[in-house]
């Protein structure tokens, strides 16, 4: 079973054999992908899984012929679509095949749609290119496909521009474009990665449903094993441009003996929280009461747009405790963090640091408290000043508080060891480090202030899953070592389950549920929490257990 490249019914829509694509000179390796063989049969969903740099997207774009020809050149192997070799056909024929026989949807539905063209026109364009329909026929067909992807009120939406739609609706439009001509092959490149978890669940359902109804072959690219468990018939694992393993979804998820696959799967955090002793002792070191933040203003004519990003938010964190704030985009979770660090000024309520209200303090008045609260941001590539050495970044804070330079450097060297990096690295610049390493440096910078409270604002969200696990482990380790109160902000329920003592769920600026992690996950009280947990992809599979068990 593990080595079967044949699909269920023997006839393959797509047949990639020993494909090798070269990278331009001066890249870190010679080939983007090497000796890759993949086949996809009628009505089959094949997931290609891998971390960044695995070559999964290059594979997809090579099939579509969308790679820049001067940079990524297929140098060996073949690609057959319905037994037609698409590496050999003319540009004209390839253009015909795109849209008619194969179609693609992308990660960012906002940027993948032309912002100055109505969505209806963008769907109709597909028909205009490949069919001889009259404009009236096209209009009818567009409405039909829009209905097919469950878009509400197609007659009204047909004249909308992309920015007027939600992320999920945009992705549905993309799918409508791709499926307008009922292609044999649909390539989906991380189509749900940019979406919220509840939207992701809907889009995955839609793809499954359409694939069933039309019998489309689907090549589905993802980094998320939860999504794989949800949607795949067969799985191909890629790493550094090579296929590491392929097999059926059941085999790969639960029986695989390939070490890399097992490492990836075991890094996926479990949705079941581990047992943690509740922390009840002591006064809260961080507390907010009735925290309010409103963005936007009423405008000159009273018609401005107002977003209530934080509405009466109340939270408490004790020393040694991790409070998780969970929510989708627009829930206000990051606003709460930024109010506490006073990167934005709250409109009302109290922010108490060890009993002192800092919500109304001026930027000057807040400086003494800056030592106590530190924050780690999401984007490891923008969190460190590229022009300053790692050491300079770490000692900046302590030196603001009159610590001598030599003392600050000694402390920085010690912290580098704490976060698992060599102290020699202090003289290096951020670009010499990987994303995970940079996130460790950011943690060291925060710790250099000897804070009481550490806020992690989506601090592991931008990292590959294997690196994510390591950074999570580090965060938990420093919490224990320094007896920190941690406010952990995330959109990812799996991550939150692993690290948080208590969970707070936010929606549209309001706290909808709060409680010990285990009880929130086992017995969610609020409808929205239930919805979130249900939407988590691959919730039936416990990855950690699957591999070790």
């Amino acid at each position, binding site marked *: 079973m593990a080595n079967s490249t044949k699909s269920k019914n023997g006839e393959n829509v797509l047949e990639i054999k020993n494909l090798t694509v070269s990278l331009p000179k001066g890249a870190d390796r010679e080939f983007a992908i090497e000796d890759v063989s993949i086949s996809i049969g009628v009505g089959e969903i094949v997931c290609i899984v891998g971390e960044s740099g695995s070559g999964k997207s290059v594979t997809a774009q090579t099939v579509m012929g*969308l790679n820049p020809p001067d940079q990524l050149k297929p140098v060996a192997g073949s690609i057959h679509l319905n037994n037609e070799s698409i590496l050999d056909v003319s540009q004209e024929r390839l253009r*015909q095949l795109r849209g008619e026989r194969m*179609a693609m949807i992308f990660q960012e539905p906002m*940027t993948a749609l*032309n912002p100055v*063209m109505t969505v209806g026109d963008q769907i109709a*364009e597909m028909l205009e290119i*490949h069919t001889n329909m009259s404009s009236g026929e096209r209009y009818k067909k567009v409405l039909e496909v829009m209905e097919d992807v469950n878009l509400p009120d197609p007659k009204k939406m047909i004249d909308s*521009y992309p920015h007027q739609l939600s992320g999920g609706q945009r992705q549905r439009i*993309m799918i409508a474009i791709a499926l307008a001509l009922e292609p044999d092959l649909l390539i989906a490149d991380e189509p749900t990665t940019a979406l919220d978890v509840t939207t992701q669940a809907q889009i995955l359902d839609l793809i499954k449903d359409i694939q069933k109804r039309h019998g489309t072959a689907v090549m589905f690219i993802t980094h998320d094993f939860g999504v794989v468990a949800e949607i795949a018939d067969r799985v191909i694992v890629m790493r550094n441009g090579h296929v590491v393993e392929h097999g059926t979804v059941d085999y790969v998820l639960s029986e695989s003996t390939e070490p890399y696959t097992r490492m990836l799967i075991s890094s996926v955090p479990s949705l079941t929280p581990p047992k943690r002793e509740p922390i009840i002792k002591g006064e809260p070191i961080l507390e907010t009461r009735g925290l309010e933040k409103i963005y936007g203003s009423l405008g000159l004519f009273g018609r401005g747009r107002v977003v209530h990003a934080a509405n009466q938010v109340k939270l408490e964190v004790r020393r040694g405790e991790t409070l998780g704030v969970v929510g989708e985009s627009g829930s206000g979770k990051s606003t709460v963090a930024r109010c506490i660090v006073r990167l934005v000024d709250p409109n009302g309520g109290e922010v108490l640091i060890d009993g002192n209200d800092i919500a109304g303090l001026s930027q000057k008045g807040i400086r003494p408290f800056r030592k106590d609260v530190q924050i780690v941001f999401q984007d490891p590539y923008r969190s460190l000043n590229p022009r300053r050495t790692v050491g300079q970044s770490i000692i900046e804070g302590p030196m603001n508080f009159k610590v001598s330079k030599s003392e600050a450097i000694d402390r920085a060297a010690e912290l580098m060891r704490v976060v698992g990096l060599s102290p020699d690295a202090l003289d290096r610049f951020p670009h010499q480090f990987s994303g995970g390493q940079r996130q460790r440096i950011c943690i060291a910078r925060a710790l250099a202030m000897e804070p009481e409270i550490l806020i992690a604002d989506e601090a592991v969200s931008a990292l590959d899953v294997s690196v994510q696990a390591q950074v999570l482990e580090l965060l938990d380790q420093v919490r224990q070592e320094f007896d920190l109160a941690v406010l952990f902000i995330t959109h990812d329920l799996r991550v939150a389950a692993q690290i948080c003592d208590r969970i707070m769920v936010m929606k549209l600026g309001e706290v909808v549920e709060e409680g010990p992690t285990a009880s929130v996950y086992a017995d969610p009280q609020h409808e929205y929490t239930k919805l979130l947990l249900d939407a988590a992809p691959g919730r039936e599979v416990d990855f950690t257990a699957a591999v070790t068990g």
Partner: protein
Amino acid sequence: MLTYLIKRVLSVIPVLIVVAVIVFLMLRLTPGDPAAIIAGDAATSQDIAQIRDKLGLEEPMVIQFGIWVGNMLTGDFGDSFYYKRTVSSMIADRVGPTVALATFTIILACIVAIPLGTIAAYKQGSWLDRAVMGMSVIGFSVPVFVIGYMMIYLFAVKLDWFPVQGYQPIADGIGGFLYRLVMPSAALSIIFIALIARMTRTSVLEVLNEDYIRTARAKGLEESKVMTRHALRNAAVPIVTVIGFAIAILIGGVVVTESVFVIPGLGTLTLDAIQGRDYPTVQALIMLFSVVYVLINLVIDVIYTLLDPRIRY
């Protein structure tokens, strides 16, 4: 939409006030008696007393400013003591050639530059791209009066294809009007061709990296339609912006070009007024040019709303 338009029109007011203050202060902060400077060298002491009275020079600065702006708003731009005429009547006489030259130039520049820039972007790195970029850097570097004289020398003196200098009003026949406008417009358009071609190339290149271009190609759309329907349409906003900024350079260029080709427009009027130290005329012309610049950019902002549905108010 209407709210936005009203807001945008109102936002012109502070800019024009700043311009008026600058123009007003330029004269008042210069050492010497403003009345004497305005009256010019040929004025009598009676003239000076009359100006002093009309401009309220005995009053505080703020009131003087108010009087000056008030006069302008009622269409009274003052009197030229140099020409012994009202400034507004002189401007009315000279406005035609300038409008003709500027309009002709900008149309010519767009017709040449936008296709050039688009092709250069599409063929990025090719010899064509290099040639367009090379020509554009030269276009930036050679001043308009040098280009003007080179054209006069080549096409008028040596080849005798065009008249050396001069202007003919459109009323005296459209043929002669256009015939005499060709060289000045061509000379003046060089820098705009350079500017607009470059901006077009840059913004089309930027757009070509966007995901929706990949989507369009994934649909199987022909390259020519990818360029026009998706790329150029999205690149339009920065191109139109640069045309707006170019209006300021255009006005400066008009002054020089009119001087080189001896065209009796507002540019030569400005230079004559400066040389004749005819300050009421100079002040009025600067105000006029600035208002034109601000208004054209206002119109461009409104055009944005047609080009890009994302711009909301």
